[in-house]
């Protein structure tokens, strides 16, 4: 049996179990969108980590390490610290608050917190606009993977992969996506272990790897190497903050069952991501020593794969495909949720029944998937540009309002709107006009401008109502003792459903 046939069969078999498991659990809107807030720590850690890491790490990250040496690894420390702090500080609060107000999506969560329906509309529209290019890039990655490694036609690869992702996500919802992510994450762990073991034994261990890298170029073993400083700092900060800002990651905290699930998910997420980062970086470094003349860093992984035995290269190929699939289905689930729950029901059709919304969410995902794989077949530079901009934009659109919203009682809707509307504009403007002049990266500059602005705006504008702060458990302790009114029941909402 050839590589291609085996890969297709194994990939299809992987989808069956989670779909079967989810078929009866995804019949309600809450079950379909956020798995009824019932996921345990292990599944949550895997679905969060698999959704966060795409083939970008194993192909792009390895390529960056190939070009810049260990400097291609050190900026990833931002992501690892970000994951630790996200599970320690953000996830527990978001889980509790989302459950207490019955939020099913991030735009709705923010709108409830800031008592601002407009925030729901704007953030859901921006999510769809920026998530779709991210899905398209995943589809392109899958197409190139099939084309380069299996010799399949690019167009057919994208169509088949797109149909699989679309059907799976639309039929299974969050339950199926989360359990498949757990399986795919385990495959990624296996692939990473293979990479680490084979990579290190190929070069005679870490000591010899460093010695050989130093002989090629001393900058390859330096902490920041030849990476331009503004870019290194920018990557460190963006990757750190993205861990709680991406709209397909935040709903992972809504699905958590209880505080025990968060406690399990914390060390698991950090450990899994450390392993994946080390594996990706090692591939790039080993390729640099063994194959020094590659035309581009992106060839590091393909060349490394070709040097392996068929069984090992199959495991890594399956791991790469898993990384792409797990990110694409999470992104699609988020976009479909936002279209059905926040845009159609939130803006145009508040009276839509739960059954109708469930049906609409499924069709939205399938239609969005169709749009994505159609656009994947076209060579549109705008898609690549928007994808590169998306991660930074989400830090400003979701990250800042989320942090202000869950930690500060004083944060107001005007401050949140400032970040959501002005954030992307400042980010883009700085990136294109002011980075060359100032030498300060666009993310650092945007944060330095927006955080003080949000604080000032919060101080001079009307605070949120006491009932809102009470529902989010943001009332001061002194006031909480004097509050005599009963707390609203689970799922109480200030916004129309």
């Amino acid at each position, binding site marked *: 049996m050839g590589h291609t046939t085996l890969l297709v069969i194994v990939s299809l078999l992987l989808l069956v179990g989670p779909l079967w498991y989810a078929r009866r659990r995804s019949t309600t809107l809450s079950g379909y969108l956020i798995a009824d807030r019932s996921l345990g720590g292990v599944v949550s850690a895997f679905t969060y980590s698999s959704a966060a890491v795409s083939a970008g790490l194993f192909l792009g990250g390895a390529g960056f390490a190939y070009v810049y040496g260990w400097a291609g690894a050190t900026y990833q420390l931002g992501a690892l*610290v970000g994951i630790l702090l996200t599970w320690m500080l953000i996830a527990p609060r978001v889980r509790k608050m989302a459950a207490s107000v019955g939020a099913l999506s991030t735009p709705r969560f923010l709108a409830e917190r800031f008592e601002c329906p407009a925030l729901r509309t704007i953030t859901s529209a921006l999510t769809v606009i920026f998530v779709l290019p991210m899905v398209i890039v995943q589809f392109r990655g899958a197409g190139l993977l099939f084309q380069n490694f299996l010799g399949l036609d690019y167009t057919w690869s994208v169509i088949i992969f797109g149909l699989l992702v679309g059907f799976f996500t639309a039929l299974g919802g969050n339950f199926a996506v989360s359990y498949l992510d757990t399986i795919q994450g385990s495959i990624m762990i296996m692939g990473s272990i293979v990479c680490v073991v084979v990579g290190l034994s190929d070069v005679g261990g870490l000591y010899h790897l460093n010695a050989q890298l*130093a002989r090629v170029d001393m900058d390859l*073993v330096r902490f920041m190497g030849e990476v331009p400083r503004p870019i290194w700092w920018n990557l460190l900060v963006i990757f750190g903050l993205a861990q709680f800002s991406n709209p397909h990651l935040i709903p992972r905290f809504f699905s958590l069952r209880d505080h025990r699930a968060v406690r399990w998910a914390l060390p698991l997420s950090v450990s899994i991501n450390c392993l994946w980062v080390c594996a990706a970086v090692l591939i790039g470094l080993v390729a640099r020593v063994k194959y020094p003349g590659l035309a581009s860093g992106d060839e590091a992984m393909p060349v490394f794969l070709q040097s392996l035995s068929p069984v090992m290269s199959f495991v890594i190929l399956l791991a790469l495909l898993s990384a792409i699939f797990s990110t694409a289905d999470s992104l699609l689930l988020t976009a479909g949720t936002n279209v059905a729950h926040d845009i159609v029901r939130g803006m145009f059709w508040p009276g839509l029944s739960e059954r109708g919304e469930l049906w609409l969410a499924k069709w939205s995902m399938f239609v969005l998937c169709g749009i994505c794989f159609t656009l994947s077949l076209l060579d549109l530079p705008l898609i690549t540009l928007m994808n590169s901009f998306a991660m930074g934009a989400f830090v400003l659109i979701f990250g800042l309002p989320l942090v202000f919203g869950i930690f500060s009682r004083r944060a107001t809707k005007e401050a949140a709107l400032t970040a959501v509307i002005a954030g992307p504009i400042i980010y883009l403007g700085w990136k294109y006009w002011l980075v060359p002049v100032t030498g300060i990266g666009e993310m650092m500059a945007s944060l330095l401008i927006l955080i003080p602005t949000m604080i000032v705006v919060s101080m001079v504008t009307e605070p949120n109502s006491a009932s809102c702060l009470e529902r989010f458990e943001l009332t001061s302790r002194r006031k909480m003792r004097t509050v005599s009114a009963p707390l609203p029941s689970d799922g109480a909402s200030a916004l129309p459903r």
Partner: protein
Amino acid sequence: MDGTDITSVAFLTVCGLLVAISILVAWKGKSFFS
């Protein structure tokens, strides 16, 4: 270990520290989560 190993050792030490902190917080830091 010589000068060429410093970055890799620092990187792996930070990774190990992050894992250790996460285990310690999950094990002992109940107040973070409840």
